[in-house]
């Protein structure tokens, strides 16, 4: 609280009256994108019109995680605004210098790691409360009365003694000229919330259902040209030779540009080598690309495949090499000697494609040492820094117009499409719109980690878990070993191994959590069955009494066994867990803690009919602290879990010969309507903990919940993804 308070005060000084503006007659005609607002005297977040309507510029852009709506709600709640009078646009990207480039001047606009709610919670509420306080001050001047007589509600200030009221719209002109309030800002008590806790609709809903331009791919700049790039399909490969004569003969093609690969010092690809085709329109660029003749040099990873990587991980997990020891508590060796029963199993998750439904794109215009870029990206400061670096200009001279994104899932953290567009903009005196195809998106992905996990669980003669040894191999990224069952089992060891590889990997929706939860929640199910114990009862016994444990991983400081247990209980209750299903029908349970939020699910599988097994029901419970927008929490619970089911059933990026093999939806099947059961119920556990994110937490439990349900239905244990439903 203290830190963000200081940040807000610095906003007050530097932003001045920019926090609130009045009278912007063109506003009604503007689109939801900030493109058309540039050059106007636009406030940072808030504009109150004389007719009492409010426009909020929401700082964090949406990629489906609903933060554009949630951010606006945080401001509106503390403003005490009438939500029905609020409309919402995208905020401009306000940057200032930092030690290594630029950082945000005001709110944190990044979205990833489910942090946008947590990091903006204090800041945006304080912005709203500040504006409210200034409106009260203006009303006190208007009525010549003391501020203590005044209250607010529904975009009005009320004077108790005379029963008068005046709208924010009537006060805004005066309020915007007043000094910022000093002293402590009073934020609302929970009981006074009018907007939080309501089912609020997506702020861009009218634009989405009418197909209005919202996404980066929908944007244009005057006189722009189009570009596509034929990239080397082999990881770290190069161009041996190329011939672009036929390309240059295609009507509409302007020029070709060779792009040199950039491999970072840690061996990760920044951009691939390739030939870009710049043309007057997209289709001409595509035709020019098809006409290119390129001989590729395969590069150093030509023997790498999904299977070779998995073999490397497995070799570590089954061997004696200690690897990188991450946790070693108690005496694991003695504990296994003391165990009456030891379960020893391995679990595999393949490389995960992102398949963002809007293929990457960026429009860059370079002029007079200044750049303007329109793109959908999860980290706008990274965009500014990358453009500045590759255009060799000051990052403060990069105007980043951050649009709504057609999916992100961590992939829009990477800068490859930003850098490529910047390099191309240097080659032509016009704005360049770079467009990726689906094949580009799938073959140049930074995949979610493939993992091979070996878990050994030791039980004493009462069936109590006394030893837990987790060994895992992967290319990069975290393990999430701070999550349960760590601190619940006395003797606990985690070893990890990183295999140097050419396959690019990166953030994939709750990075590492799904892989971890698949292994751990499957093994816990195996332990329960080995004990002849109900899997729910077993989980609750393991979690024990409600207790906050310290959490040293990313995204949380504590992990609470009571909150986790309650999610299991509520999901089970919703599923009628204790009602025995007929033979051939089974329930599977799995839960997980991701970045401060707890979620658990039950899946029902029916194996009785001929043909593939069917998923016949899904029931989930989530604890994300104070529920800000139940409508969107439920939506994330549904969509996030279905994304996890897609991993369970389909997602399997295949590498062979040092390149991606499956590069479109015909070769990489994806979950669809007919895979989604009709029964899907969600419950939100209400409490007063500070709100935490919901974009990632519903995903991780899905594969284990399904695998556990299949075991319950058929007795067949599945330890490798993707799962075939053919029985």
């Amino acid at each position, binding site marked *: 609280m203290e830190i963000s308070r200081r940040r807000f005060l610095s906003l007050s000084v530097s932003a001045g009256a920019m926090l609130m503006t009045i009278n912007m007659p063109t506003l009604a005609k503007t689109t939801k994108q900030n493109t058309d607002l540039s050059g106007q005297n636009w406030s940072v977040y808030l504009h109150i019109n004389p007719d009492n309507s409010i426009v909020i510029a929401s700082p964090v852009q*949406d*990629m*489906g*995680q*609903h933060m554009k709506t949630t951010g606006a709600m945080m401001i509106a709640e503390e403003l005490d605004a009438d939500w029905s009078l609020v409309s919402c646009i995208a905020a401009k990207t306000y940057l200032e210098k930092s030690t290594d480039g630029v950082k945000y001047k005001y709110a944190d606009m990044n979205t990833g790691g489910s942090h946008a709610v947590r990091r903006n919670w204090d800041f945006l509420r304080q912005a709203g409360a500040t504006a409210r306080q200034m409106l009260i001050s203006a009303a006190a001047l208007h009525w010549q009365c003391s501020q203590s007589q005044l209250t607010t509600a529904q975009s009005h200030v009320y004077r108790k003694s005379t029963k008068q009221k005046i709208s924010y719209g009537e006060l805004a002109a005066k309020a915007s000229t007043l000094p910022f309030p000093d002293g402590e800002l009073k934020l609302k008590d929970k009981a006074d919330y009018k907007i939080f806790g309501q*089912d609020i*609709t*997506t702020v*861009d*809903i*009218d634009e*989405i*259902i*009418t*197909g209005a*331009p*919202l*996404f980066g*791919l*929908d944007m*244009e700049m005057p006189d722009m040209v*189009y570009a596509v790039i034929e990239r080397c399909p082999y990881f770290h490969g190069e161009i041996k030779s190329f011939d672009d004569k036929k390309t240059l003969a295609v*009507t*509409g093609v302007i020029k070709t540009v060779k792009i040199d690969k950039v491999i970072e010092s840690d061996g990760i690809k920044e951009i691939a080598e390739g030939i870009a085709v710049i043309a007057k*329109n*997209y*289709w*001409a660029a595509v035709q020019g690309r098809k006409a290119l003749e390129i001989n590729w040099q395969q590069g150093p990873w030509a023997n790498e495949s999904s299977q070779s990587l998995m073999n490397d991980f497995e070799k570590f997990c089954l061997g004696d090499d200690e690897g990188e020891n991450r946790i070693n508590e108690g005496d694991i060796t003695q504990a296994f000697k003391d165990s009456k029963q030891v379960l020893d199993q391995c679990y595999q998750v393949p490389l995960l494609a992102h398949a*963002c*439904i*809007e*293929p990457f794109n960026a429009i860059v215009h370079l002029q007079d040492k200044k750049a303007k870029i329109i793109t959908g990206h999860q980290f706008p400061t990274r965009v500014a820094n990358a453009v500045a670096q590759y255009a060799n200009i000051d990052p403060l001279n990069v105007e980043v117009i951050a649009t*709504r994104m*057609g*999916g*992100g899932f961590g992939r829009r953290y990477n800068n490859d499409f930003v850098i490529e567009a910047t390099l191309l903009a240097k080659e032509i005196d016009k704005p360049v719109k770079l*467009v990726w195809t*689906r*094949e580009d998106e799938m073959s140049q992905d930074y995949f979610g980690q493939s993992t091979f996990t070996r878990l050994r669980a030791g039980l004493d003669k009462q069936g109590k878990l006394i030893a837990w040894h987790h060994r895992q191999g992967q290319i990069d990224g975290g393990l999430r070993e701070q999550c349960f069952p760590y601190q619940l089992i006395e003797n606990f060891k985690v070893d990890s191994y990183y295999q140097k590889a050419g396959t690019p990997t990166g953030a994939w929706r709750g990075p590492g959590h799904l892989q971890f939860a698949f292994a751990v929640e499957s093994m816990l199910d195996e332990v329960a069955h080995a004990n002849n114990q109900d899997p729910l009862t077993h989980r609750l016994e393991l979690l024990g009494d409600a207790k906050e444990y310290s959490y040293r991983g990313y995204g949380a400081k504590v992990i609470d066994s009571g909150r986790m247990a309650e999610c299991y209980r509520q999901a089970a209750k919703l599923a009628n867990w204790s009602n025995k299903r007929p033979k051939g029908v089974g329930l599977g349970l799995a839960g997980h803690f991701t970045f401060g939020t707890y979620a658990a699910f039950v899946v029902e599988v029916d194996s009785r009919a001929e043909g593939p097994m069917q998923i016949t029901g899904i029931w989930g419970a989530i604890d994300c602290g104070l529920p800000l927008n139940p*409508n*969107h929490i439920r*939506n*994330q619970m*549904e*969509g*996030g*879990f*279905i*994304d996890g*089911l897609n991993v369970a059933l389909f997602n399997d990026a295949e590498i062979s010969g040092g390149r991606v093999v499956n590069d*479109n*939806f*015909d070769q990489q099947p*994806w*979950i*669809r*309507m*007919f895979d*989604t059961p*009709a029964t899907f119920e969600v419950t939100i556990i209400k409490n007063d903990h500070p709100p935490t994110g919901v974009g990632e937490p519903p995903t991780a439990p899905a594969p284990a919940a399904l695998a556990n349900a299949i075991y319950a239905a058929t007795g067949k244990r599945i330890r490798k993804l993707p799962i075939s439903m053919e029985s």
Partner: protein
Amino acid sequence: MPISFTVNGVAHQVNEQLDMPLLWYLRDSINLKGTKFGCGIGQCGACTIHLNGHAVRSCSITLSSLDGQQIKTIEGLSDRVEKAVQQAWKEIDVPQCGYCQSGQIMAASALLKQNPKPTDEDINNVMTNICRCGTYVRIRKAIHQASALAYDVS
């Protein structure tokens, strides 16, 4: 030979780049950005439009095949069923990222014109568009709701 067709009731004539898919003509030539590019091979359905009233994937039909045809895009939705679908999408608040939803809405409105009261199974069979965010639960609900809005006498 120029190719003539209508888009949302407006006459269009083209005589170059006839191998170009309709998708790119809509998006880049006549600036109708509501029809989305998702896969380019007719798999995902983000580019779904109505061709003579039928849901069709516009990335997979070329301009040369469109002579005399009637095309409707998300920007042209106007009749009772189409408005009901949009209204239901809003009431259920279907979208997450929202990118695929114009294709979903085009597919759903074509479905409801042919089958005013689709069952879940009908929906499963017809609604093959990918929603990468996985909003299928809400899409299904919204189709039932749109059916009620469009056809139930209140």
